């Protein structure tokens, strides 16, 4: 039994070690070294890289990134919950709807972002359409702003919110909803007093799955936000490739990782309290 378990677990453990633990350790070590002249790192050891994060310039980027990721998470849950509820209640059609939710994954995210650019730009479908209808005379500034980035994040990560929420709703014992109605709860009260609390673990999972990648995003902000909306992801990319400041990038990454892990623990504990 134990032997079989070892055989089964070893490949996954090796993969995790090589792809997650080792790189994380390298980043951790790099973050306390000094910057090399042409990229790379060199001695002496220092914690100055973390100190630089306190700079208001970076603080602003950090706050904006967290704010945008939080907004994307909130919107994904607000839009995802009703959608998941609808799918969970649609009986035989639920598999069709689930495939539709997953369908966008068949195309590269990058290509889908370019599609959004074609829709949103000044000469894009939306602006030319509105202009030809005579509703506007100047193109609306739809692209290259924070709103466009938020739209891209919500569009890209909505399935990650829908799927875990759907999973908890689908498992929800239908007799609990009947019991609530039987005890006098109207449909809205059933939703707030039974469905939502029991769905909390799924909502928590959705929050993590949307918040963490949103916080680290750089393609979405790069393509839809132009150069005006700098997020942590863009800062990391920029500092790594252009400024060649590897230790500073490592320090940013470590802080991001800590935020993500803390969030996961907070959500998990909340979920355990409920059940």
């Amino acid at each position: 039994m134990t032997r079989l378990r070892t055989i089964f677990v070893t490949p996954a453990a090796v993969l995790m070690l090589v792809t997650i633990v080792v790189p994380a350790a390298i980043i951790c070590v790099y973050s306390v070294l000094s910057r090399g002249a042409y990229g790379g790192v060199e001695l002496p050891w220092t914690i100055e890289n973390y100190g630089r994060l306190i700079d208001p310039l970076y603080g602003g980027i950090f706050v904006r990134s967290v704010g945008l990721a939080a907004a994307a998470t909130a919107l994904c849950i607000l839009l995802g919950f009703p959608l998941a509820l609808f799918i969970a209640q649609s009986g035989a059609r639920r598999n069709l709807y689930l495939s539709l939710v997953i369908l966008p994954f068949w195309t590269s995210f990058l290509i889908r972002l370019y599609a959004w650019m074609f829709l949103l730009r000044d000469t894009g479908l939306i602006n030319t359409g509105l202009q030809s209808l005579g509703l506007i005379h100047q193109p609306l500034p739809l692209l290259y702003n924070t709103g466009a980035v938020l739209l891209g994040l919500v569009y890209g990560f909505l399935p990650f919110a829908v799927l875990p929420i759907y999973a908890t709703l689908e498992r929800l014992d239908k007799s609990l909803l009947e019991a609530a109605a039987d005890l006098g709860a109207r449909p809205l009260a059933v939703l707030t007093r039974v469905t939502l609390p029991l769905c909390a673990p799924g909502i928590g999972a959705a929050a993590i799955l949307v918040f963490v990648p949103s916080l680290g995003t750089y393609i979405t902000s790069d393509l839809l936000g132009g150069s005006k909306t700098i997020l942590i992801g863009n800062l990391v990319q920029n500092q790594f490739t252009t400024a060649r400041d590897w230790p500073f990038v490592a320090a940013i990454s470590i802080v991001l990782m800590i935020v993500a892990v803390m969030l996961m623990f907070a959500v998990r504990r909340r979920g355990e309290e409920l059940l």
Partner: protein
Amino acid sequence: MEDILELRGLSKQFATHRAVHEVSLAVERGAFFSLLGPSGCGKTTTLRLIAGFEMPTSGEIWLNGTRIDALPPFRRSVNTVFQSYALFPHLTVLGNVEFGLRHAPAADAEQRVRRVLEQVQMADKRSRKPSELSGGERQRVALARALVLAPDVLLLDEPLSALDPQLRKQVRAELKALQRQTGVTFLFVTHDQEEALALSDRIAVMRGGEVEQAGTPQELYQKPRTRFVASFLGEMNWVDGIGIRPECVRVSLDGFLNARPGRVAHTTFLGPHRHFTIQLQGGELVTAQTAAAVTFAIGETVQVSWDAADELRFSS
């Protein structure tokens, strides 16, 4: 006593089958009324129609003088004890019991919660979660949660089936005592004829979505109107198309008038009495119930007889 609940020609047609067909019943206020039948007979659907979880295809449901069949569940003064209990896992015992009072505020709510928790002996476990309770305790919380709202009728959907057999008899007695104590009308769904006979003031036997016969346990047992009712309640021998209960069959070595000879096929000791299964010369098997002290050897030739008055005849 006036009727608190009345079903008039109630039918429910699902896409593929007819679950309930033209069911008419009247339940007296304060009664312990059972719907008895095998699985798929429509008893649970009938209960769900009364609770409002299903809408009838046709027919009427009258509760306390008001027609309720078009009302949503939260507007009906009936409460349900579910087969799986359906306790809210995120709430404590107290939270579960108080759940319905939020929607039907009562001045004496606190007092009612305290009293009902004492009635079901769960007062000391009020802050436990359902996952920390035994099956019997969960069942009592489910009862308390429904009874605290003082429903006109309490609907119970096989509430004992999830309990192990030893506990079931004890809980059965508690259930009966609780019904007497509270005076609430119980409508009890079960497939267990022994349970129905032991608990009920009246029973309606259902089959294929229809009520086969309704009456007191004694009426149903002694004067079954159909073959189905006769076989479903208690044990029944069938000889030449005539029904005879095992306790009415006499076994002896000497021949009586109208006695039939047979051979003892096997015997079962049941504590206070004994069952003999006797193969008649025609090949039919007859079970006779005798005192425990009576002994016949297997293979022995015996005479089987009964009073004509105990014979049950059915046209269908």
